[in-house]
């Protein structure tokens, strides 16, 4: 356990991310966004880097392997580069979000390579002290940059940032893109849906994205025991670094249940996408790839 913690800490110190990551990969999607500003988009590099997490968790566990990995953090950084296809997809999603915001008259800035990590992984692993310290650093950085409002694009970052105020003084407004965009495209087709546990049962955004989906014309195939608010379950992704086998087993079961409803699956979170994709037979799409 301690080795996992030191790995995360060292990586955060060195790379400002929980894994060794080339920050250019995180910021490469944005070309013409203003640097900083009062309102910024906050990606926390989630869509960009999530594709490599399974590779990391494959040789992670709490067995001490991190101690070995620590010595080669920089060589690891090369290893954890997403493929071109994965990067293109992530960049497209983020640009879809920004374009949809612009259509609503919102022109967010971006911190590019200076964008910090939200600390979500620390919070979710229960490393609460480390999370508080991290939140303090991010809060002060945002204050120094004059940021008043952040727009998040994924549930884990949204959850982490909306919880900062429980740990440190934080008065930046945190909104999620789903609260701001509209479904302007008309889509025909049927999907089933895997809800994000955080959006659905912690952050009160489930009805909001369902409203957008329904407005777009997509028909959702649902079953109350599989996709209900209280009956749907997590994809298993958030536990991958602690226990990969458990994470995989949850994902496999979840994908099987969802497959009974459709071979086209909508997700609303980059972790769900990566975790469920290997197990789901058919097409998996992020809502921002489809309706924006």
């Amino acid at each position: 356990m301690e080795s996992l913690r030191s790995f995360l800490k060292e990586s955060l110190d060195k790379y400002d991310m929980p894994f060794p990551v080339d920050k250019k990969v995180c910021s490469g999607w944005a070309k013409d966004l203003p640097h900083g500003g009062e309102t910024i988009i906050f990606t926390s590099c989630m869509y960009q880097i999530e594709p490599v997490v399974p590779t990391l968790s494959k040789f992670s566990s709490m067995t001490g392997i991190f101690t070995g990995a620590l010595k080669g953090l920089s060589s690891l950084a090369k290893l954890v580069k997403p493929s071109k296809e994965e990067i293109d997809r992530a960049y497209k999603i983020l640009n879809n979000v920004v374009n949809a915001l612009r259509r609503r008259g919102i022109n967010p800035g971006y911190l590019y390579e200076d964008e910090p990590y939200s600390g979500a992984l620390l919070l979710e692993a229960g490393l609460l002290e480390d999370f508080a310290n991290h939140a303090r650093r991010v809060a002060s950085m945002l204050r120094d940059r004059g940021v008043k409002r952040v727009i998040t694009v994924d549930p884990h970052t949204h959850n982490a940032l909306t919880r900062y105020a429980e740990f440190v003084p934080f008065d930046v407004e945190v909104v999620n893109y789903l609260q701001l965009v509209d479904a302007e495209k008309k889509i025909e087709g049927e999907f089933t849906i895997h809800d994000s546990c955080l959006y659905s049962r912690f952050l009160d955004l489930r009805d909001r994205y369902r409203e957008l989906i329904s407005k777009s014309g997509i028909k959702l195939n649902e079953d109350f025991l599989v996709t209900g608010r209280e009956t749907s379950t997590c994809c298993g992704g958030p536990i991958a670094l602690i226990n990969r086998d458990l994470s995989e087993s949850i994902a496999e079961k979840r994908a099987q249940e969802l497959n009974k409803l459709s071979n086209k699956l909508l997700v609303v979170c980059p972790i769900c996408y990566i975790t469920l994709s290997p197990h789901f037979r058919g097409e998996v799409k992020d809502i921002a790839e489809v309706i924006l």
Partner: protein
Amino acid sequence: MTWEIAIERTIRNNVPRVYNVLEKYPYILELARELREAKLEVLNNLESYVEQTVESVKRIGGVPHVVGNSEEAREVVSKIIGDRKKIVMGKSMVAFEVGLREHLKNMGKEVWETDLGEFLIQLANEPPSHIIAPAVHMSKERAEELVREALGGLPPNSTHEQIVARVREFLRDKFVNAEVGITGANAIAADTGSIILVENEGNIRFTTVSPPLHIAVAGFEKIVPTLPHAMMEAMVQAAYAGLYPPTYVNLTSGPSSTGDIEMKRVSPAHGPKEFHLVLVDNGRVRASKDPDLREALLCIRCGRCHLHCPVYRAMDGKWGVPPYSGPMGSMWSYIVFGDPKPSLLCTHSGGCKEVCPMKINIPKVLEKIKARAWS
């Protein structure tokens, strides 16, 4: 594979049933809200409610015992039992928590679990996999094999009914000849000293009435302010377990007695001569004073959170320190056994908090326990 089939069937059977019960009897939701308030009141003054309960139990002719930990609980119960040999047990999580059955067996007692699920796991020598359906991990085939091996008298390919009938036949004698009946308690009324037990099999009714000595072993957190609250807990627990109305609600207030001859109170009548209530702390007072953990003590053991949890499902019911499993179990593994590790596996799926009748924010409690696991 057995587990996957068993849990899938359990979810399909039970989850819709609970929703139906709550829709049909909406007053349960109101009772659950009221019960939560009443239980919070107890948790804010747990030690004084324990004292009040002790006085009430004495007033109705029972013998109260307050114990700090498992060892004390085993010692007290052994003393009460003395030389008596034949013991039947109704389902009690706390009896398992303090290691009572094993202890009594090691003392050379003849001990039989009488709840069917508990009976099966006793035969299999396995820990319970769910708090209200302890043998939920067992298929019919496995149960059949166990009963045939231990008791004989089962034809090949026996039906569910035949298995149950064989166990019923075997336990009949045990109930009648038992010298001691040990149960838990779903709720304890501080004002009257009464205990309430909810069940569907009828085994608890037998266990509390047939033997001359009844010992109830329960955690401090089972105390509620008044008898109506205790009845409320029985109704809410049964409804959220999907078994409503419950077949039996047993209320015990002290030993049995009669005043039918010249109105002179004589004990026993047909029920036990002695009633003992063993109240177990095992970390509960400490948890009641800990704002991060207090909520967990509201749990009424309905078992609903388990069936809405992906971790419990994926871990074959083995998440937590027995007898505590699932989301509630990973909280209770820490409270009672001081083990914070199970909490680390919570993925904050969150279904548990949505369906918990006591509105316990389980992922939040587990988040705090996780933090302790790291330190």
